[in-house]
Every structure is written in structure tokens, then in C-alpha cells.
């Protein structure tokens, strides 16, 4: 991302946005702080708490939020705040893994379709048509029905559901780049095909796709937490936000905090991701050769 950013003069292509940028900035700053905080928590949850996410304390079970337990305790006395801190890593990695696989797989498919000749293009794009006709959540559930439940399979399932979308995006960008002047020049200079793709087509086609992948990361986070919520992803007693939300579902009448806070953690993270993604989109708009 930094490589892309350094090439672009600040505010390039965003002519009407002087006003918008001034207005958009406070939200962006808040979003950046939230994302930074969530990242630090995911890397080192121990910095923020001395408690253990799995230690039970039956005496203090179902304690309401308060001084010693900020977000209360669950049905077996585990501290909800601590579990949210320790759950950040799993929740983020699920989403990150899924979107990385989706973009990686999509890039492979998209480049093959764009550069691999008419037959490859026809076959891959019709395949994408078929997969895009299937609702992503159902496609992910189908993959889980075939592979079985579990953390790794959740990541694979979400990636599979998103790959056709990114495959199409990469193909469209690669098609544009392929016809551009600098690629023609490189071909004219006799650059080898592999080098041409690696040095010119891929970096230029991937920039806009990576910007869109920011928003896609938010979607992947929601899907991952949904699959965990449905009991198909992370297994208890591991702390994971979607799983905690589903555990809290059984205690809504007596202890709303068990489910409400982990869900809020997902929502806040996804909102921050989307704010950042929107900004990136607006910032890099017009950079595409289209």
C-alpha cells in the first residue's frame, strides 16, 4: 500500500474534495486510532489486562458490568473485557486470512483470464458468472458442508465466496493496463513476458484492487464472525468475537453484556475499516487508467 501511496501526489484526482477532506478527516483520525488500538490489542492483549481469558470464577458468574469487571462476566465467571481483548487476534486473523486468500486467488484467476488467451478468459469468466449468481454466505456454507466446520475451513469458505468478485476486478484492471502505452513500450523493448507481468501489469492492476480490498476486509470480518456465530468456525472455549456473541445469545434475558460487548467490538472494528476504506477509495479515485 505504501508503494502505491508514495507514487501519488496528495489529493490527486480528487478535485471537488477540498471541502470533503476537511470534513472527512475527524472520522478518519478516529478510525485510524481505533484500527491502531485493535491491532496492538491483537498483537499483545497482555499489555491491557492481567486477567486470563479462560480462567473461570463461578462465584462471580454473570456479574454486571462495573468496577472490577468493566464489561461484566459470563455464565462461568470469565471476564468479558479480557475475552474481547484476547479474541481480537483470532477475529482479525480470520478476516485478514480470508481477504488475503480472496485477493491472492482472485489475482491469479484475473491475470490468467486477462493474459492467458481467449479460451482461458471465456472459461474463467463464465465460471465467475456462475459463482457470483450464488449468494456469498450460502456459497461459504456450501464449502463448509463439503469440508467440515473449523477455523481453517471458515477462512477457506469465505475466501471461496469472495474470489470470483476479485477475479473479475483484477481481470478488468489487467485488461486496461495491458492496452496502456507503457506496456506497449515495454513489449516493444523486448521485455520477457514474465517480467512484463511481474513488473508492469501486476503492480498497476493491483493498486485499485487493494484499495477495494480494504472494504472487503470489513465484509470478511462480518462473514467470519457470522460463521463463528453459527457455530461453524472457532470452537469454544477460545475467545472469538462471533463465538462470544452466540454464547451471549442464551443469556439475553439475564445478562445482556455477554453478547452485546463482543458484537460491539466487531461493529466498531468494521466501521473503522470501512471509514478508512472509503477514504482510500476517494483518495485514489481517478488514479486508475480507466
Amino acid at each position, binding site marked *: 500500500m505504501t508503494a502505491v501511496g508514495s507514487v501519488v501526489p496528495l489529493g490527486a484526482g480528487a478535485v471537488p474534495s477540498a471541502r470533503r477532506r476537511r470534513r472527512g478527516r475527524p472520522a478518519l483520525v478516529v478510525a485510524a486510532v481505533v484500527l491502531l488500538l485493535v491491532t496492538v490489542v491483537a498483537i499483545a492483549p497482555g499489555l491491557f489486562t492481567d486477567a486470563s481469558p479462560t480462567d473461570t470464577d463461578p462465584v462471580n458468574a454473570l456479574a454486571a458490568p462495573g468496577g472490577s469487571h468493566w464489561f461484566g462476566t459470563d455464565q462461568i465467571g470469565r471476564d468479558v473485557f479480557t475475552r474481547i481483548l484476547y479474541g481480537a487476534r483470532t477475529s482479525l486473523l480470520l478476516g485478514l486470512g480470508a481477504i488475503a486468500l480472496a485477493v491472492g486467488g482472485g489475482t491469479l484467476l484475473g491475470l490468467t483470464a486477462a493474459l492467458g488467451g481467449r479460451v482461458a478468459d471465456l472459461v474463467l469468466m463464465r465460471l465467475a458468472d*456462475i459463482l457470483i*449468481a450464488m*449468494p456469498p*454466505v450460502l456459497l461459504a456454507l456450501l464449502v463448509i458442508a463439503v469440508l467440515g466446520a473449523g477455523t481453517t475451513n471458515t477462512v477457506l469458505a469465505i475466501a471461496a465466496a469472495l474470489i470470483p468478485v476479485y477475479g473479475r476486478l483484477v481481470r478488468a484492471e489487467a485488461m486496461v493496463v495491458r492496452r496502456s502505452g507503457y506496456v506497449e513500450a515495454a513489449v516493444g523493448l523486448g521485455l520477457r513476458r514474465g517480467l512484463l507481468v511481474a513488473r508492469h501489469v501486476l503492480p498497476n492492476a493491483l493498486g485499485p484492487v487493494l484499495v477495494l480490498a480494504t472494504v472487503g476486509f470489513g465484509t470478511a470480518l*462480518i462473514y467470519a464472525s457470522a460463521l463463528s*456465530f*453459527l457455530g461453524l468456525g472457532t470452537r469454544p472455549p477460545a475467545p472469538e468475537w462471533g463465538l462470544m*456473541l452466540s454464547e451471549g445469545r442464551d443469556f439475553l434475558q439475564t445478562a445482556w453484556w455477554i453478547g452485546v460487548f463482543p458484537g*460491539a467490538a466487531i461493529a466498531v472494528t468494521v466501521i473503522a475499516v*470501512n471509514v478508512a476504506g472509503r477514504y482510500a477509495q476517494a483518495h485514489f479515485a481517478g488514479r486508475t487508467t480507466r
Partner: protein
Amino acid sequence: MRSPLATRRALFSRRGIIQGAAERLLAGTAVMLGAATLAFAALQLVPGDTVAVLLGPTTTASPEIRQQIRTEFGFDQPVPVRYARYVGNLLHGDLGSSYQLQQPVSKLINDQIWPTVQLTVAAVAVAVVIAVVSAVVTAGRRPALRATATAWELVALSTPPHWLGIMLLTVFSFQLRIFPVAGAQSLSSLVLPAVTLALSVAGVLGQVLREGLEAALEQPFVVTARSRGLSQSAVRLRHAFRHAATPLLTLAGWLTGTLLGGTVVIETVFSRPGIGSLTMQAVTSRDLPVVLGVVLLSAFAVVLIFTVVDLLHLVIDPRLRTTEAAL
């Protein structure tokens, strides 16, 4: 998501409406045949012996019985024969038999489809109303108002539906006791699930609609309409809205897919019967024919709506109907 307006216009202007419609239908059929082929491939992919899956883990069936089952289900036939039979059965609406429930998949879906249809239709209505109101009221207005609308839409589309459902249940069912906690018996049990399913969709629709409205409000025909003495709101509703509604229609296919996927989560949150809970049962017990039946049916709905929308564009936007000769 589909072919952009420009290519579609070229298609229809060059070859006329009927040919264009035929091509769309053909493409839709091809996608459905592809989906059926993928479904068939997925059935072959299921790990282990299908007969063993059918009989369950605790069975002591003799080899003769296993062979009998194999013949009955046609597992002993070569792959092309089974494929032809599978596609043929699909054409007759036969989605195969559930491994676990010993019933035809089409019957299982048929028994469960009504609560899901109610939920989906209610959610579409709620989402469209929220999006239209939010967009029409705020498009091209003061920056503060626009910023507020943009912010709420961003929050709406970023909120995980399963969390929103839990929040609404906590507040309106457990604390205030306005709506029932579970089930699908009464109209009031439909309110919370429909709102939950609708909100993220409303966020996306609202954004698309407002962008469309703002683009339309800058068009010359808006100035013309204003100069004829039409009020600002009349211009918005009668002229600009019609333009802005076209991309909304394009999103209908995506909308259907999102809602059909969303029902799985929502029906679990609110303990509602329906296709979603049927799917969940089937995924948990790895009952592949049922999952495939639901996926194929959803794909059919999405393809059908994409095709209908493409044809509707001709009706809504007369420019798409012009032939090159007329130009």
C-alpha cells in the same frame, strides 16, 4: 456487477429487443446449467462413501443391502449417466433426497419456504422505504445533513446483522417486551427480523440512490423542470428519482443474494423456522443434497431477477430502445 450500461445499450441498439432478450435468457440458462454442473461435482466431492453417509455411522448393514442402496440411488452408474440423470431430475424440480431426513429436498424446501419468503419480502420493503426516504430527503442538501446521512449509512452497512438482531432482541423483546422473542406465528414476530435483515441493505441502497439523485439533479432537465415552475420536491420525486431508480434496479440481483444469505443468520438469531434454519441443520450434519438444493434455488432466484431486471431496463429507459437507424 453485470454488463455495464454502455455494452447493454450497444447490444440492444444493434440487434433489437427480441434478440437481446433471447440472448439474456440463453445466458441465464447457461449460468444455471453451470451451477447444476458445479452442484453435481460437489456431490462427487463429498469425502468417503456416500452409502456410508446415508446409512449413518452406527449401521451394521450387510454388503448386499449396501449394494441394493447403490443400485437404488444409481451410484453404480457411470458418471456421465448420473450427470444426465441429475440434470434431468433438476429440470423436473427434483433436487434429490436428503441424506439425513430421508425426504425429497424439494419437499423439505417447500415446507419451510413460506416464513423465509415473508421475511425476505418484508425486509425488501423496509430497506427500500428507509433508503428512499434517506436519499430523497438528503440528496444535494446542506453538507451537515448529507454528512449525517452518509454516516448513518456507513454504520448501517458495517453493523453485523447477527449483533444488531441480538441488540434489538435485548431492548425490544427482553427489556420492553414489545415483540416476541422467537417464532414466526404472528405479524409482530416478523418486525424485528425484517428490520435486522433490512438495515445493512438499506445502507447500501441509500448510498447508491443518493449518488444517483445528486447526479440527476445536476442534469439540464432539472433546470428545465424548475423553470416550468415545479417545486423542488416535485422535481426530486417526479423527475430526478426516476433517473436515480435505474441503478437501484441493477442492484436488485445483488440485493436478492444478500437477503437470501442473510436469512440463514437472522433465522438463527430469532429462532425462526425457514430455509435458513433448514440450511443450518443441513450444513451442521453435512447433508449436502439439502445445502445444494438451497444454493441452486437461490442461484435460480438471482439469475431470474438479473434477467428480469435487464429486460425491465428496456421498459424504464427508452434510450436503450433506440436503434441505430433512429439515431
